[in-house]
């Protein structure tokens, strides 16, 4: 696979690993947060942590759209499928996430709900066209990457005047979540939790560009390196962060220049702003309620907004009291610090956000990293 395999080369990995080890000052601690689940995945799957010197530590951030999706939103989707009899279309990722009453979309399906896994929002729209006698709802989740496709199908639905199609919009915004983490007292107060820098999103940045991170670098004095999702990209970004820290720089650098520019994809941004507007607040699983951190469908598309059409109200569902996700997502604690980890809380039975998908910090550690506890 061109432009994939080259970025997984184990020999080059050793090269960068040696450079990181040589340049990271031994008596200094470097804590970097990789915001995206995609980076968490690359780090766990390829064993990147083994190539880092002990003074460099990675903190897994909240950038997995499935993990941060609050239970209350899945409850809404299940309600639509079970009680309102709609065909609910969703990306495969959400099917297994546990919701209220011991249900999940998969279990609701077993109870007779018509739930279809789709690869693309366009598939959901096509289904609505093919089955005009049924109501079809697309359960739209994800960050800035999945948002433009949702915008396109909403515009198409309006153009076609397709009345049996609507969207349950749960799209969230990356910069707001980063801001939320940086604003939290643990991170702000110097000396408590040092997050020394961020590995910035790969594919999200292809859409929004590198410009939105400039504010963080400046305002919070944190270096950001936007990086691709291949393991060498992550290694290189870590090296670049180490260098920024050593030099006392706080800049936005772009390692993923093969796909990301400063302005991002303007056409995609344009479509998104035509269809969506900011929500005043939105609940993130693990982070809590974050102001202006999500999108909702504009009035002009109200007809295709499942929340309006089915008059859905949102009821939050708290996670287990002992769940430490909030602290883990801010780098204050590690998964193994949680009493529930690997005992009550497992990937089969997640109690909190970080265990929901293999990209959550707790699940990644459970699935790929438990052998490390012994070594440590």
């Amino acid at each position, binding site marked *: *696979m*061109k*432009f*994939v395999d*080259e*970025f997984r*080369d184990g020999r*080059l990995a050793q*090269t*960068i690993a*040696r*450079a990181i080890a*040589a*340049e990271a*000052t*031994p008596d200094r601690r470097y804590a970097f947060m990789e915001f*995206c*689940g*995609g980076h*968490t*995945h690359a780090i766990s799957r390829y064993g990147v942590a083994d190539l880092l010197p002990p003074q460099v530590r990675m903190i897994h951030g909240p*950038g*997995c*759209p499935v993990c941060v999706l609050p239970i209350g939103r899945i409850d809404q989707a299940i309600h639509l499928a079970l009680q309102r009899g709609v065909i609910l279309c969703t*990306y495969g990722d959400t099917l297994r996430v546990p919701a209220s009453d011991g249900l999940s979309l998969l279990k609701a399906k077993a109870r007779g709900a018509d739930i279809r896994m789709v*690869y*693309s*929002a*366009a*598939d959901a729209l096509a289904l609505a066209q093919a089955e005009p006698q049924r109501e079809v709802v697309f359960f739209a989740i*994800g*960050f800035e*990457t*999945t948002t*433009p*496709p949702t915008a*396109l199908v909403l515009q198409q639905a309006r153009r076609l005047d397709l009345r049996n199609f609507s969207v349950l919009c749960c799209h969230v915004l990356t910069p707001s979540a980063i801001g939320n983490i940086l604003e939290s007292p643990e991170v702000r107060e110097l000396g408590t939790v040092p997050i020394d820098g961020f590995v910035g*999103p*790969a*594919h*999200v940045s*292809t*859409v929004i560009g590198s410009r939105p991170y400039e504010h963080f670098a400046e305002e919070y004095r944190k270096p950001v390196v936007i990086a691709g*999702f291949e393991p*060498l*990209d992550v290694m*290189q970004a870590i*090296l670049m962060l180490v260098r920024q820290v050593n030099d006392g720089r706080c800049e936005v650098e772009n*390692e*993923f*220049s*093969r*796909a*990301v520019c400063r302005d991002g*994809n303007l*056409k*995609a941004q344009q*479509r998104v702003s035509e269809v969506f507007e900011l929500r005043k607040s939105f609940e993130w699983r693990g982070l809590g309620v974050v102001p202006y951190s999500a999108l909702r469908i504009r009035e002009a598309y109200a007809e295709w907004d499942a929340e309006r059409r089915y008059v859905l109200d949102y009821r939050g569902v708290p996670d287990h009291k002992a769940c430490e996700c909030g602290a883990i997502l801010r780098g204050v604690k590690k998964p193994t610090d949680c009493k529930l980890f690997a005992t009550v809380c497992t990937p089969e039975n997640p109690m909190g956000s970080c265990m929901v*998908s293999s*990209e959550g910090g707790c699940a990644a550690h459970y699935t790929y990293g438990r052998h490390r506890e012994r070594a440590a």
Partner: protein
Amino acid sequence: MCLAIPARVVEVLAEDQGIVDLGGIRKQISLELIDGAAVGDYVIVHVGYALSRLDPAEAERTLALFAAAEAAMNEGAADGAGGTAA
């Protein structure tokens, strides 16, 4: 996790659709979010949509950067050994 993968455009179809190839796998996707995609272009594909174009020259530059880490380090090791010890 915003799973996306670079694939090569092998056919441009009507209505902003296109066929991409990834290691011998072919799939129809939408090219609506990028302008003027042409056969031979590499695009980043996500949930059935091309999100952006991939710039091969930039990819080469990044790969060269990886290799340069070694060179830089060798230099660093030469004059940096004393530096770290100091």
